[in-house]
């Protein structure tokens, strides 16, 4: 059905909401990439089969819905039962008949499937009561996990396109711009440029033709909020872009999606087709006379294409090399025409901002960072997953209250934010309220919201080396400071982790970093030294230990670390099985021994040891022992 007027849209909305209200009971199966990997598709099919087989759809109004990512990927597949709000974790298809019998028909809760809070081992039945969810405020991710991303009617029942209808029929393009300005929203992709300022600058640029682009090239390792939005609520992205295009008077849009996100492409494509059919996209949108269409472009797998000018070159079929930005892309962007490029999360927020008003959005957050922000909380933390919180929430609250603390209750060492352009924040800054300014002051940045928690078994020199290796591979090679600076710096770090560090290396690193910050063409190179400088700032002693003592305090750098089993080993034999090189000897219930000539210092034994009976020590001491 094609919607051709404001009234018809209102009627469609009413119909969609009525359909939603008519479904008394619902089983929501998370079908994000995470849960799919653990068998969510089979679980959803099993529910559909059981429901059809027993006629439960008619009898008790039961429906099953495949939704986007619930964020709690580690516990997948996740299943939520409505209206009770009950959450089951790690559900397998073979248990579905039992669940239908006991839980849906019998009203009985199966304790083994409930979420177990790692803090106190309590099992929590209600979705909303789980600390991971309880503390969240969702704007960009408002409908993820609630709607079926491939069902437009379901999305509309949950307010999708309500903001668009308001913009088209009740607001002028300039009023839309004013509303976005009132919201104080800033770009969710990294640098945090004000959305409204970007739009105004593009609108003021001369010319009749302009473009609206969506940056779905979420390349920061450790961040996956954009993937979840594109997969779980593609209509929110389309709606934001259509509203933006209306404000700017643009008629062509592109979504640039990373090559590594196949499901996002499929769901976006399906959403575009559905939106076109419904008259929400294409010519004469909702009968308003406004035309706008969107195409999807798949990236080729290059991190640098997340940079605006590289992305635009890539869209034009060229290599993704950035250009110097004497002229902003808002004036000369794609095909040298005025262009607005915003991040997926930015676009996903626009519909809600228009629907609820800019003041509503601005009522959340801090003085200069308004609204909410999505983060992926990952690494060595108990509850890993995707969360959205008001700006200004402290790191401690995020890591301990929502994340449940460090995995295995090991000591916290640092949290890495901002990807390869960001830095590592130490324990004494855990009470830092997270917003754009505070993170930058701490030597890191917001980036795309990746938060990687690190424990004492993380070597900060190795982490900095990891990012350098990443960027050396991803540098496009166009400008010398970035290409050569990274290569030289990586060379020094290789020496550090292999025990070849020399006095003066730290100073050499700092000199190179200053040159790269000053001379690189784009942000990739300019911000490349951040992980290095922030670890140097907060963990300098670790660098010094690598150079002066030939030791890795965290016991990670293999060339510097040896392992041994201590006397309190109870001979459980677990390490024996985990060792990839058969370097461990011992029979069950007796003390085990590591043979240093066979050991490759991978640490697999230490990671699995249930009694913490394996310790690391500097390899250099081995030589000393032999002499003695």
């Amino acid at each position, binding site marked *: 059905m094609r919607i051709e007027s404001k009234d018809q849209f209102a009627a469609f909305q009413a119909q969609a909401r009525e359909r939603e209200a008519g479904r008394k009971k619902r089983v929501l199966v998370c079908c994000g*990439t*995470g849960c*799919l*990997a*653990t068998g969510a*598709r089979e679980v959803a099919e099993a529910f559909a089969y059981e429901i059809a087989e027993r006629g439960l759809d008619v009898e008790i109004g039961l429906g099953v819905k495949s939704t986007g990512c619930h*964020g*709690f*990927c*580690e516990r997948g597949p996740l299943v939520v039962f409505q209206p009770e709000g009950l959450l089951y974790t790690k559900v397998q298809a073979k248990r579905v008949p039992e669940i239908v019998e006991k839980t849906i028909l019998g009203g009985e809760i199966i304790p083994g499937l409930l979420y177990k809070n790692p803090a106190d081992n309590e099992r929590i039945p209600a979705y909303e009561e789980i600390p991971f969810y309880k503390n969240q405020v969702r704007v960009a991710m408002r409908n993820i996990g609630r709607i079926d991303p491939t069902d437009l009617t379901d999305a509309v029942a949950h307010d999708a396109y309500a903001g668009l209808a308001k913009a088209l029929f009740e607001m002028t393009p300039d009023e839309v711009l004013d509303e976005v300005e009132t919201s104080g929203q800033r770009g969710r992709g990294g640098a945090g440029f004000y959305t409204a300022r970007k739009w105004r600058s593009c609108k003021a640029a001369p010319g009749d033709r302009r473009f609206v682009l969506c940056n779905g090239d*979420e*390349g*920061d*390792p*450790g*961040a*996956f909020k954009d*993937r979840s939005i594109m997969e779980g609520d593609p209509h929110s992205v389309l709606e934001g872009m259509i509203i933006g295009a209306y404000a700017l008077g643009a008629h062509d849009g592109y979504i640039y999606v*990373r*090559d*590594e*996100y196949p499901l996002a492409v499929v769901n976006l494509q399906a959403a575009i087709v559905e939106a076109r059919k419904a008259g929400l996209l294409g010519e004469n949108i909702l009968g308003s006379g406004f035309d706008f269409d969107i195409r999807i*472009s*798949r*990236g*080729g*797998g*290059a*991190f640098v294409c997340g940079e605006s000018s590289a992305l635009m070159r*890539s*869209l*034009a*079929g*060229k*290599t*993704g090399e950035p250009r110097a930005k004497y002229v902003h892309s808002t004036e000369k962007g794609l095909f040298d025409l005025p262009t607005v490029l915003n991040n997926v999360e930015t676009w996903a927020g626009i519909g809600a901002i228009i629907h609820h008003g800019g003041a509503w959005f601005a009522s959340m957050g801090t003085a200069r960072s308004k609204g909410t922000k999505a983060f*992926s909380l*990952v*690494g*060595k933390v108990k509850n*890993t*997953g995707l969360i959205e919180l008001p700006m200004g929430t402290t790191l401690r609250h995020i890591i301990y209250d929502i994340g449940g603390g460090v995995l295995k209750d090991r000591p916290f060492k640092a949290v*890495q934010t901002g990807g390869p352009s960001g830095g590592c924040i130490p324990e004494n800054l855990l009470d830092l309220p997270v917003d754009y300014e505070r993170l930058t002051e701490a030597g890191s940045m917001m980036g795309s919201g*990746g938060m*990687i928690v*690190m424990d004492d078994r*993380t070597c900060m020199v190795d*982490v900095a080396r*990891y*990012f350098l290796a*990443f960027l050396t*591979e*991803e540098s*496009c090679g166009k400008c010398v400071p970035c290409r050569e600076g990274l290569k030289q710096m990586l060379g020094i770090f290789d020496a550090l982790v292999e025990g070849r560090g020399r006095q003066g290396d730290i100073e050499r690193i700092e000199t190179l970093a200053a040159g790269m910050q000053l001379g690189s063409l784009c942000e990739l190179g300019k911000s490349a030294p951040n992980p290095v400088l922030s670890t140097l700032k907060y963990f300098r002693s670790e660098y010094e230990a690598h150079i002066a003592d030939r030791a890795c305090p965290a016991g990670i750098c293999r060339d510097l670390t040896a392992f041994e089993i201590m006397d309190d080993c109870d001979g459980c034999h677990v390490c024996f*099985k*985990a060792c*990839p090189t058969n370097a461990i000897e011992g029979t069950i219930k007796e003390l085990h021994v590591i043979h240093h000539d066979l050991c490759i210092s*991978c640490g*697999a034994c230490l*990671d699995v040891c249930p009694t913490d009976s394996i310790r690391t020590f500097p390899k250099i001491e081995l030589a000393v022992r032999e002499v003695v």
Partner: protein
Amino acid sequence: MAEQPCVDLSKTEAILGSYPHEEPSLIQVLQDVHRAYNYLPCDVLVRVAEVLEVPLAKVFSVSTFYKAFSLEPQGDTIIKVCTGTACHIRGAGQLVEELERKLGIGAGETTEDLKFTVKTVNCVGACAMAPVMIVGEKYWGGAKPARMSRYLAEGGSDEN
């Protein structure tokens, strides 16, 4: 240029037919070609350059710039080990080493029988399940070196 085995160009023609013949189509065309042949054969690049009216040097430049493209034939099953930050600190390196022990090839290489290609990728966005490995289309979260044989045996299926 090394001699390439002759390939069936009809698939290329079909792909070229579905895009406008202009430079902006280049990456999309190469992606489809890559999917059809599992790599970018030399003869195909020449044909693509001709039809899209893009200099061959530019086609080559784009083909080598993006990681999604390979100029060498790849294995039937592609194994991707995610080496994003979360996977890195949860032991992705050990997965790559185990693959090297099991298959005798490092990252970026293909087994001689063209069965497997091992790649490392910078974050597949499944960080909550780190470390992650993708064998064919199958994602394995919380992957462990000790379970590698199982991943290799089961992962090649067409399961989504």
